[in-house]
C-alpha cells in the first residue's frame, strides 16, 4: 500500500488521538485516586503544529512556564515532556497538597517534588496506553523540572522534532476539578528509529 505523507500523518493522528484519550483517562483515574476526589477531563486536542508556532502554544515565547521532562527507554526510546503555565502548575500543586493559591512565588522544593510526581503519574498513564496499543515495553526515568520562558522550555521538544520534520505533535490535556481548570501540553518525542517502529506497530506505516 502506497500512502502519501499527509495520509500517513492523518492516520497517525487518529491513532495518537486514541492514545491521548486512553492516556488521559488513565492519568485522571490515577490523580483522582491520589487526591481522593472526583476529577473530570476533557477530550484532549491532538495537533500537528508548525515548529515556529510551538512557543505560541502557551501564549507567547516569553511566558513563564513549568516543564517536566522524562527519559523513555526500552522498546521505544525518546522523551516525554509536559508543559504547563505557572497558574496550572500551582493549581495542580494545590489540588495535590490541599493548599490554596496565594499568588506566584517560586515553587518550594516540596512543591517541585509534587509536580515531578504528577509528571511521573501522567507519563506512566500515557506509556501504559501506548504499551496497550503497541505491545511495546517502556521504562520511564526520574523526571526533571525546569521553570523558564515557554520558548526556551519548548525549544527542547522543538529541536528533537526538528531532526525529523518541520512540524511538532502535541496532545493538550485538560483536567477539571470544581472550578479549577488545568491545561497541560504533552509531547511525545520518540527517536527517529523508535518513531518508525511506533508507526509500524500502530499499523500506520
Amino acid at each position, binding site marked *: 500500500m502506497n500512502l502519501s505523507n499527509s495520509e500517513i500523518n492523518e492516520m497517525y493522528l487518529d491513532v495518537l488521538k486514541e492514545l491521548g484519550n486512553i492516556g488521559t483517562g488513565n492519568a485522571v483515574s490515577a490523580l483522582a485516586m491520589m487526591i481522593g476526589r472526583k476529577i473530570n477531563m476533557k477530550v484532549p486536542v491532538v495537533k500537528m503544529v508548525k*515548529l*515556529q508556532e*510551538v*512557543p505560541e502554544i502557551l501564549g*507567547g*515565547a*516569553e511566558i*513563564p512556564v513549568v*516543564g517536566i*521532562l522524562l*527519559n523513555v527507554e526500552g522498546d521505544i*526510546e525518546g*522523551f516525554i515532556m509536559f508543559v504547563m503555565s505557572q497558574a496550572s502548575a500551582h493549581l495542580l500543586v494545590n489540588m495535590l497538597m490541599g493548599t490554596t493559591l496565594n499568588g506566584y512565588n517560586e515553587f518550594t522544593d516540596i512543591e517541585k517534588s509534587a509536580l515531578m510526581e504528577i509528571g511521573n503519574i501522567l507519563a506512566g498513564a500515557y506509556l501504559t496506553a501506548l504499551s496497550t496499543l503497541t505491545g511495546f515495553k517502556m521504562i520511564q*526515568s526520574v523526571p*526533571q523540572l*525546569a*521553570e*523558564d*520562558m*515557554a*520558548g*526556551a*522550555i*519548548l*525549544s*527542547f521538544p*522543538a*529541536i*528533537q522534532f*526538528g*531532526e*525529523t*520534520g*518541520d512540524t511538532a505533535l502535541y496532545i493538550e490535556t485538560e483536567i477539571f476539578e470544581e472550578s479549577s481548570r488545568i491545561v497541560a501540553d504533552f509531547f511525545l518525542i520518540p*527517536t*527517529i528509529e523508535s518513531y518508525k517502529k511506533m508507526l509500524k506497530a500502530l499499523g500506520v506505516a
Partner: protein
Amino acid sequence: MMEIIKVGMADLNVTGYPNALTTLGLGSCVGVCIYDTKTKIIGMIHIMLPYSWGVKNNTNPAKFADTGIPLLIEKMEELGATKKNMVSKLAGGAQMFEVTRSEFMNIGKRNVDAAKKVLYEQNIPIVAEDTGGNYGRTIIFYSEDGRLEIKTIGKGTKTI
C-alpha cells in the same frame, strides 16, 4: 520611528538603521547577530540545529548553522552590507534539562560550536557572546550601535 522586528524559531531577518531585531525565549537554540559597522545593517538568525547534513527534513536553511549563517550574510549583502565590515555576537545555547541520552547531549553547546565554526569560515569576527547556562534568553539587537540586549527570568538584563 524605530521598529523592532521579530525573528521566529528557525527563521532569519535583516534590517537597517534605525530598526532593531528581536527573538523571544531562546533556549538551546542560538541567536546569531551580525552587524555591519559601516552601514548599520543588521541581521539575526534563530538556529535550532548545528548541521543540515544527515537530517532528512532540511528544506529550511534557517534552521541550521551551516546553511543559515551564509544565507543571512547574503541577505545582508543584498541590503548593501559588506562582508569585511561585519562583526557578530552570539546568545543562547543553554542546556534547559540535564539529558542523559548521549545523542541528544547538550544540543545547546553543539549549536554554539557550529555557529562559531561557520562564522570563522566566513571570516566574521565574534566580538561578544552570552551563551550556555541553563536558562532562557530574549535578545534585542539594535542597528544604532550593534548592541545586544539580553533579558532573562530571574537573572536580570544585560547588554553585550
